[in-house]
C-alpha cells in the first residue's frame, strides 16, 4: 500500500497507557494494545500484563483512546468521472486523517458501477492509490435506472460488498421486491436511499416554518417515511436484508424499531450531519447545509441521537459527498446536495459523547463494529486475531476546523470554523501507520 507513514510498519507495536474501547467485547477500560503481523495480538487490561513482542515499538498513549478504525458505509468518491472533486488518493488521505480505515464507496459514478469489470477497476485503483481499505458497492439496478436488477452474483464474486442505487430510490416496489428476493440467494445486503422522488418534488429543504420563511420549497418527512414503511413490508415478504442508508426523522425510526421488534431483517444508518446539525443551521441560504435527506428540525435530530444511543440506528455514516464550486456556489434551490465528512465524522461524533448523549462503546459500535458486521468484514473490532485497523484518539484536544486544511479535494464542509474537542493522533491499517498527527 502507498502512503504508509513510518515505512513498512511490520515491526510489532505496543500501545501503553491507553483507554481501550472495543465494542465487540463491550470493553472500555485502561490497558494496552499489542499489534504484530498486521493483527491484534491482545487489547485491553490483560494486554498490559502480556509479554511484549521482541523489538516492539512502544507508544505511550497517556490515557488516549485506542479504538477500532472507523468503517464508513456511505462514501461518494469522484472516481471515475468526477476526479476534480475527489480521487481515491485524496479520499484515502482524508479518511486516514479522520480515523476512517475502511470506506464503502457508492456506485453513482460515471460510468455507474453496475458491471463486474468496474467493481474490479475500483478495487485495483483503490489498492494502487490509497493506504486504507476500500470496498465498492454495486448498483441495485442497471444504470441506477430503477428498472432491471444487476448481476448480484457476478458482482459479489468481483468484490461488491453490498448493493445500493446511491442517491437514488428504487421507486418501483416490484423491482425492489425482486431485488430483495434475488439478493437473499447471495446473502447480499441492499442499502437503500429512502426518499420518494415524487414527494420530494421540487423541495430543497425540510418542509415547515423555516422553509416557508426562506421561501424555499419543502420536502416532507413522509417522502422518507413512506419508503421506509414500504421497504419494511418488502423485507418481511422476501426475507431479504434491507438497510435504510439514512434515517432523518423520528417517525422513520419508529417504523424501524417496530420492524426490528417483529424480527424483520431491516437495519438503518444515520449521517453525522443529521446527528449534529438541524435545519436552522442553513441560516442565510448556506448551500453546504443542503443535504439529502434534508436537515430536519431539532426534535428530529434529538430522536436520531436517541436512536443511536438505544441501538435502533445501527451505523453512523459520513455520507461524504464532495461537491465543487460549480455545484455548490449556486442559489440554494439550484445547488447540489451533499457535504464532505470523512475528516470531521469522528470529531463531530465526539460532541455526542461530550454532551453525555452517547457512551464511547455505543458510539464506536455505530462507527466501526456494526457496519463491519453488516458487511461481513472482519475489521471493526480489537479482538485478538482481528486485523490491526485501529486509531489513537485524544478525546479532549480542542481545535477549530479550517476548511483549507482538509485533505479532501472538495471543501464543502458544513463544519467551517466549527470548534471540536477530540482528534485523531494516529491511524493504523493492517498494523501500518497511515496517518500521524503533526505536533507533540
Amino acid at each position, binding site marked *: 500500500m502507498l502512503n504508509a507513514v513510518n515505512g513498512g510498519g511490520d515491526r510489532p507495536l505496543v500501545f501503553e497507557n491507553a483507554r481501550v474501547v472495543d465494542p465487540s467485547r463491550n470493553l472500555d477500560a485502561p490497558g494496552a494494545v499489542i499489534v504484530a503481523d498486521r493483527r491484534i495480538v491482545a487489547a485491553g487490561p490483560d494486554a498490559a500484563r502480556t509479554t511484549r513482542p521482541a523489538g516492539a515499538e512502544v507508544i505511550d498513549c497517556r490515557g488516549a483512546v485506542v479504538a477500532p478504525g472507523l468503517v464508513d458505509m456511505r462514501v461518494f468518491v469522484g472516481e471515475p468521472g468526477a476526479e476534480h472533486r475527489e480521487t481515491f488518493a485524496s479520499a484515502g488521505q482524508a479518511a486516514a486523517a479522520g480515523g476512517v480505515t475502511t470506506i464503502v464507496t457508492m456506485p453513482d459514478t460515471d460510468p455507474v458501477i453496475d458491471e463486474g469489470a468496474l467493481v474490479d477497476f475500483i478495487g485495483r485503483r483503490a489498492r494502487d492509490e490509497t493506504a486504507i481499505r476500500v470496498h465498492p458497492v454495486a448498483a441495485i439496478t442497471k444504470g441506477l435506472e430503477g428498472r432491471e436488477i444487476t*448481476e*448480484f*452474483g*457476478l458482482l459479489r464474486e468481483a468484490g461488491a460488498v453490498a448493493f445500493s442505487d446511491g442517491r437514488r430510490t428504487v421507486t418501483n416496489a416490484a423491482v425492489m421486491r425482486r431485488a430483495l428476493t*434475488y439478493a437473499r*440467494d447471495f446473502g447480499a445486503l441492499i442499502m437503500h436511499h429512502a426518499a420518494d422522488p415524487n414527494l420530494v418534488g421540487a423541495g430543497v429543504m425540510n418542509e415547515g416554518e423555516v422553509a416557508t420563511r426562506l421561501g424555499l420549497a419543502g420536502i416532507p418527512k413522509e417522502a422518507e417515511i413512506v419508503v421506509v414503511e414500504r421497504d419494511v413490508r418488502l423485507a418481511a415478504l422476501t426475507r431479504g436484508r434491507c438497510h435504510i442508508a439514512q434515517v432523518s426523522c423520528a417517525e422513520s425510526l419508529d417504523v424501524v424499531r417496530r420492524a426490528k421488534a417483529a424480527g424483520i431483517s431491516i437495519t438503518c444508518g444515520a449521517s453525522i450531519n443529521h446527528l449534529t446539525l438541524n435545519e436552522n443551521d442553513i441560516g442565510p441560504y448556506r448551500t453546504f447545509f443542503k443535504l439529502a435527506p434534508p436537515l430536519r428540525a431539532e426534535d428530529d435530530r434529538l430522536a436520531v441521537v436517541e436512536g443511536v444511543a438505544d441501538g435502533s440506528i445501527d451505523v453512523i455514516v459520513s455520507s461524504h459527498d464532495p461537491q465543487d464550486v460549480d455545484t455548490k456556489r449556486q442559489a440554494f434551490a439550484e445547488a447540489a446536495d451533499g457535504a464532505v465528512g470523512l475528516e470531521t465524522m469522528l470529531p463531530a461524533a465526539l460532541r455526542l459523547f461530550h454532551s453525555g448523549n452517547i457512551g464511547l462503546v455505543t458510539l464506536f459500535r455505530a462507527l466501526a463494529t456494526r457496519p463491519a458486521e453488516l458487511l461481513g468484514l472482519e475489521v471493526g473490532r480489537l479482538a485478538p486475531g482481528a486485523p490491526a485497523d485501529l486509531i489513537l484518539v485524544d478525546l479532549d484536544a480542542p481545535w477549530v476546523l479550517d476548511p483549507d486544511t482538509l485533505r479532501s479535494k472538495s471543501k464543502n464542509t458544513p463544519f467551517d470554523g466549527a470548534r471540536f474537542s477530540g482528534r485523531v493522533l494516529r491511524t493504523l491499517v493492517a498494523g501500518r501507520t497511515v496517518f500521524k498527527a503533526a505536533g507533540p
Partner: protein
Amino acid sequence: MNVTPPPLPLAFSRRHLLGIEGMTAEEATGLLDLAEQAIEISRQIEKKKSVLRGRTLINLFFEASTRTQSSFELAGKRLGADVMNMAVGNSAVKKGETVIDTAMTLNAMRPDILVVRHHAAGAVELLAQKVGCSVINAGDGAHEHPTQALLDALTIRRHKGDIAGLTVAICGDIAHSRVARSNILLLNILGARVRVVGPSTLLPTGIERMGVEVFTDMRAGLADADIVMMLRLQRERMEGSYVPSIREYFHFFGLDREKLGYAKPDALVMHPGPMNRGVEIDSSVADGPQSLIGEQVEMGVAVRMAVLEALAAHLPNA
C-alpha cells in the same frame, strides 16, 4: 419390450385430460403401459392403428407450438383420425372473438377430440365446459401440461425401471412453468422425491407446499439427484426482470458438466424443449451421453397416442 395389452376399460376413464391434478397412480400407470405399446407401433414400418378411424381431432392452438402440435398431429394420424390444425393466433381471435365463441364454432363442426393450448391458465377447462367433445389440455398458461409430464414419466421409467424412490431435480424457471407444475404433481403421485432448484425470483410463493424440497443453489439442489430436469427460460425474463442477465443465469443455474457432476454419476438429463443453449443448458450436456432430450420427443408421440386411445374408448358415441 414385451408388454401385454392392458384390458379396456383402463383405469383412466375420463372424458377429458385437463391436468395431472386428481389423477391416481393407477390411471397414470395405465396410460404409461398403453404408451409402451404405442412405442412399438411407432417403430414399425406400418405405424397405423385404427382405433380413431372416422374420428376428427382438431388441434386448437391459441399459442404457437411446433413440437407439441406436430406430436399430437402424428399421434392422431397414427391412430387413424382425421386431424385438422387450427392456428388461432392468426385468425378469429385476432378479430376479437372470445375463446368460448371460437370453441362453440368448432364444436358445431362436431369434432371428437379437441387438443387445446392457451396462454391463460384455466382457459382450457373453461372451454371444456362448453363443448360436447373430449378435450386434451396441451398447455394452459403456467398451470398444467399433462402430456408433457406423462412423456417425461415414461422416459424416466424406461431408463430407471421404477419412478418410486428416485430423486428428481426440476431446475430453472419454476414460476412460469406449466411443465414444472404437471411434473411435480405426477412425480409425487408416482412416488418420486421432487426438488425444485432456481433463483428465488423464479420460485413461486408456496411451492414448498406442493410436495417439493426447495433449493436456490445448484450444488445442493442436484446433490445425489437421479434425474435433472431443466426448464426453458424465456427471453423476456432474462434481462433484469427476474434474473439480471443471461451470463449470470448461466453462471449460477445453467447446467454444464461441472454442475451435472453434483448429481449421481448415472444421473440423466431432460429438457422439455425448445432449449436455449448457453442459457439454461450447455451443449456438452444437452448432446452428451446422459441426455434423454431426443428420446423425450419420441416418447411424446407415444404418450399422446395412449391418451387419445384412452379417451376414444369413452367418447359418448363409442
